[in-house]
């Protein structure tokens, strides 16, 4: 059994709400002065504590983090993500609990802290690296790498105040990225800067982790977490909700927070008639057709919340045809988060396209090819219609939904060399053919 590199036990952090600034000295003196009064009147000594509104930014967190872990931390604003990183980087003290860290921690909570405008780039590199506890000889060793990474070689002796904000950021990240930490804590710093630089930063972070460094990374971008992390921690109101494989945690986070519903059951599977409270069988008035369920599945038939972009996605619908005098067929409307219709899928199964031979239960699955949809959320409306004349029998808005994400495993996606996310609903991987036609 390997020892964890970070052990977090019963960690809590309390903040007081209300007064902008709590005043330790005045309160201590005041508390002391009024002690006799409280004694006579029988007022409890912890009256001050009780009068304050308290918020627990973190509550009873227990975690073990091992060497080489790449951990993403997700959660809504105010969930305690940044507080956790601040405690780990020893900027704020916990209220209770204990953290043991066996290694050298570098935290990059903000790009460009500790830069002095009046000093040159060179002096700032030394100053900034020494803030992280490095000595002159150590900085000398990494100096060249930093300069090369930051691409500011010709401005090294210019005061930093004349730098563009992009240059400052490159320099700051370059210093932080070369500090050679055992544990690197990042707080959404990669969300700034131009795309090509972001890619460069992420590559560097990736490089660090492949050398066995531990990285903890707060982000709101599910995409970058699925790409760079293998483990994910989900915090909500200071509590640890889930901790596990990045894809699993993100799947449940997406499901909960973004209200993704990858399967819907309108009729209880075992007994057709017995329905749970509030649920009604979805049938049309004349009882022509009844919807049973709809699921988003992967090629193994497993229900999935989030699908990798390079795998095919199936939508599986179960329905009962109660009257086969009309040719009722399923159809799907795909919408994005902004409720814009992306495309419609009609029923094209040649075997049953002209109507079903007999009443009964049907299971229809339609496959969306791999590398077709863009990354992001998709909502699926389920419609039961007769194609001609067009009559709508059932319309289930957002019957199911799913998320498409990018993984780092497969290099050949439609992304190409681009860093930024693509607009549009689809991002198909098409075949290019280029020929060299000679000099011009």
């Amino acid at each position: 059994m390997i020892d964890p590199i970070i052990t977090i036990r019963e960690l809590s952090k309390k903040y007081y709400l209300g007064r902008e600034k709590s005043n330790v000295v005045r309160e201590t003196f005041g508390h002391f002065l009024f002690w006799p009064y409280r004694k006579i009147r029988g007022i409890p000594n912890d009256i001050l504590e009780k009068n304050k509104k308290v918020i627990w930014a973190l509550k009873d967190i227990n975690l073990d983090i091992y060497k080489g872990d790449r951990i993403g931390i997700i959660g809504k604003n105010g969930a305690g993500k940044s507080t956790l990183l601040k405690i780990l980087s020893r900027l704020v003290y916990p209220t209770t609990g204990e953290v043991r860290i066996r290694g050298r921690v570098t935290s990059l909570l903000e790009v460009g802290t500790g830069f002095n405008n009046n000093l040159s780039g060179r002096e700032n590199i030394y100053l900034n690296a020494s803030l992280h506890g490095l000595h002159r000889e150590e900085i000398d060793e990494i100096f060249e790498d930093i300069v090369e990474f930051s691409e500011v070689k010709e401005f090294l002796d210019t005061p930093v105040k004349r730098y563009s904000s992009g240059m400052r950021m490159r320099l700051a990240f370059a210093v932080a990225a070369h500090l050679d930490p055992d544990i690197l804590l990042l707080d959404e710093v990669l969300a700034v800067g131009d795309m090509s630089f972001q890619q460069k930063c992420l590559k560097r972070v990736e490089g660090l982790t492949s050398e066995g460094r531990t990285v903890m990374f707060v982000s709101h971008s599910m995409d970058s977490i699925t790409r760079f992390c293998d483990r994910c921690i989900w915090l909500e109101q200071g509590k640890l909700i889930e901790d596990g494989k990045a894809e699993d945690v993100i799947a449940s986070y997406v499901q909960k927070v973004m209200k993704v519903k990858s399967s819907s059951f309108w009729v209880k599977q075992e007994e057709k008639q017995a329905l749970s409270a509030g649920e009604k069988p979805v049938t049309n008035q004349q009882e022509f057709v009844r919807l049973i369920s709809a699921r988003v599945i992967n090629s193994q038939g497993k229900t999935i919340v989030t699908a990798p972009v390079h795998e095919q996605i199936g939508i599986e619908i179960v329905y009962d045809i109660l009257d086969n005098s009309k040719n009722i067929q399923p159809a799907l409307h795909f919408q994005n988060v902004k409720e814009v219709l992306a495309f419609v899928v009609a029923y094209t199964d040649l075997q049953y396209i002209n109507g079903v031979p007999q009443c009964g239960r049907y299971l229809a699955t339609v496959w969306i090819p791999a590398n077709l949809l863009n990354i992001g959320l998709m909502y699926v409306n389920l419609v039961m219609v007769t194609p001609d004349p067009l009559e709508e029998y059932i319309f289930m808005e957002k019957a199911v939904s799913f998320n498409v994400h990018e993984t780092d495993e497969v290099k050949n996606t439609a992304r190409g060399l681009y860093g930024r996310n693509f607009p549009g609903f689809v991002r198909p991987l098409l075949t290019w053919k280029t020929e060299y036609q000679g000099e011009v």
Partner: protein
Amino acid sequence: MKNKLKYPTEIVIKPPSKSLNLDLKEIYRFRYLIGNLVWRDIRVQFNAMYLGVIWATVRPLLMVTIFAVFRNWSGASLHVPIPYSVYVYSGLILWFYFTEATTATSKALEKNASLITKIYFPRVINLIVPAIASLYGLGVAMFPLFCMMVWQGVYPGWRIFLLPFVLLQCMLLVNGVGTLFAALSLESKDFDKLLNQILYIGLYVSPVFFAPGLIPEKGRLIYFLNPIAGTLLAFRSVLFNDFPFPLWQFIYSIIATIVLLVIGLIIYQRVEAFIADKL
């Protein structure tokens, strides 16, 4: 890259402790940072002006001139046993060092707030740096003093070897008072004003432009409660052979320095627990 420094094998993060604990090993580990921050302070201060060196000396020189002129006109006896201009100038430069460094220390936490809230390093370092960085200004201001000493024919004796010791005491006094007020001013800006007043009045009640011989015998005991009084006299004594060493006053100054340092650190430690939440 090999780490030439010994990093602690295990860092334990716990709720803030109430007792005084100063991790000297950790501060020593960050010694290069202290050097860098001192250098930064000096660079920033002297680089922004062309005449930085002149400004460091012009104020004490002007004041010496004024004091000397008025004393000559009034013919007042200020009980100074050595040439007056040398006495006043040496007192003024040490006093200005004390004032500047103490003010800078008391503001150091706020000045470096962006660092303190974003990067971990022993925060006490912020409070050590100004006392060292201000020595540069004192050093610059020493040159006119040497010229004046040669001109007036006042020379140091063997006690010059005690100079580092006296300066160290002065620096620690700066650290003590500065730390105390740095911690207090986080609570309320009133303490900033209070320190300003103390330092302003201090110039006139400390033995800067008169000697304690001026004070009546009965009042002297109270007069020397001022911890910098002993330092100012000892500073003159190590520089000028003819000036007697104020042994008891200086011993009192050392004790007062230690007491102030401990009080300052205790209060600072109480505030430090919440520092990142407050700045």
